């Protein structure tokens, strides 16, 4: 260190190293040491942050330059390798699902779901969640798969259907036990494909519960579940 530094205290020295790290002048090895300190020393990390904020306006001297248009595709393909179109097959074959006991179903989904989902989103950037929905004394059984990256919830009925003058309504139940409606399920054994709104998607994580209630046509008139729960299950990460 030059002998004539104006600030020789350790704190002053730390602050200067933080500044040098941000300016970028440190040789590779010292740069590595500074980076290790950022990871382990919150005070030092805070100093680095302060210098980053302080000096950032200097980047105004670097003219913005539009990168070539193809670049974004390269970023996307390295983050989200091409998804094959949704695969028909087992997932859409209702007979296959009906033939399975619900208990073995979950184990199957965990195995197969991993495969199916990772073919669509091959890297574990998004964590698929799965739930098997049923209830004691009810013949209503469904499976639900939630794709976090797409905020897409797919609910497939396996057995049981509402009476002609009733609808099944799907609810999200968070840790606070409040039920939030995700909408009325289509009738006739059709799969529901639900786009979850961003605010709610933030709360989807392992440990939340999906529930189905029996409601008047069009769903609960009050926004609060009125009918009995005919099936429920916890969302678990695969």
């Amino acid at each position, binding site marked *: 260190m*030059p002998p*004539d*530094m*104006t*600030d020789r205290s350790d704190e002053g020295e730390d602050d*200067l190293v933080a*500044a*040098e790290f*941000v*300016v*970028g*002048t*440190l*040789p*590779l090895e010292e*740069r590595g040491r500074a980076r290790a300190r950022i990871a382990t020393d919150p005070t030092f990390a805070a100093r680095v*942050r302060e210098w*980053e*904020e*302080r*000096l*950032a*306006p*200097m*980047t*105004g*001297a*670097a*003219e*913005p*330059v*539009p*990168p*070539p248009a193809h*670049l*974004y595709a*390269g*970023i*996307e393909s*390295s*983050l*989200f390798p091409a998804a094959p179109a949704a695969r028909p097959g087992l997932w859409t074959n209702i007979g296959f699902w009906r033939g399975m006991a619900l208990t073995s179903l979950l184990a199957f989904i965990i195995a197969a779901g991993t495969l199916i989902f990772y073919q669509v989103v091959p890297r574990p*950037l*998004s964590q698929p969640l799965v739930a098997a929905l049923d209830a004691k004394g009810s013949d209503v059984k469904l499976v639900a798969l939630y794709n*976090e*990256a797409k*905020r897409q919830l797919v609910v497939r009925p396996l057995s049981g259907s509402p009476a002609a003058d009733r609808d099944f309504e799907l609810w999200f139940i968070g840790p606070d036990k409040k039920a939030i409606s995700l909408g009325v399920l289509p009738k006739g054994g059709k799969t529901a494909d639900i786009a979850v709104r*961003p605010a709610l*998607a*933030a709360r989807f994580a392992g440990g939340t519960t999906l529930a189905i209630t029996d409601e008047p046509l069009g769903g609960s008139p009050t926004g609060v579940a009125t009918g009995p729960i005919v099936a429920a299950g916890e969302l678990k990460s695969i």
Partner: protein
Amino acid sequence: MATAEADIDEKDLDRLIARIALRDRVAFARLYSLTCAKLFGISLRILRDRPEAEEALQEVYVRVWLRAGQYASSRARPMTWLISIARNHAIDLVRSRGLPRAGLDEAEAIADPAPDPEAQVASQSERRRIDACLGELEAERARAVRAAYVEGYSYEELATRFGVPLNTMRTWLRRSLLRLRECLER
């Protein structure tokens, strides 16, 4: 005169990064379109090689996607967070090349603060403020600070360029940074 895009709204960027943390690809595409020219410009100035800067930019946005979840706890302003990812990556690349870069002589015409009327992001007033504070330093030392921060010069490269011993350069730069901070906090 500022163009319509001149000022990227920080709150918008904040929201976009929060949505990216939730794996929202639409938000990611939007953030890219708003910020890629700025970050590419920064990377190009440091790397001075177009193909390398293009590759670096891809890596920068991969990191943005992967680290978006850490953004909230970083307590950084959104553009500063992005700039830091881009600059750190570019500087790591030039430092790990080891040898001083070719073309330093041609870079002589380093950015004296020819004010850029369409400067994005750093609000005009922040930019003016740091320019004013750099203006309080001796001209040569201000150039050294800019060459380091904007062009990614190492101490070794700066010492060669300004014809002073390495330790002297380090002392210069450190003093300049302290004065700069003192001025910015005034």
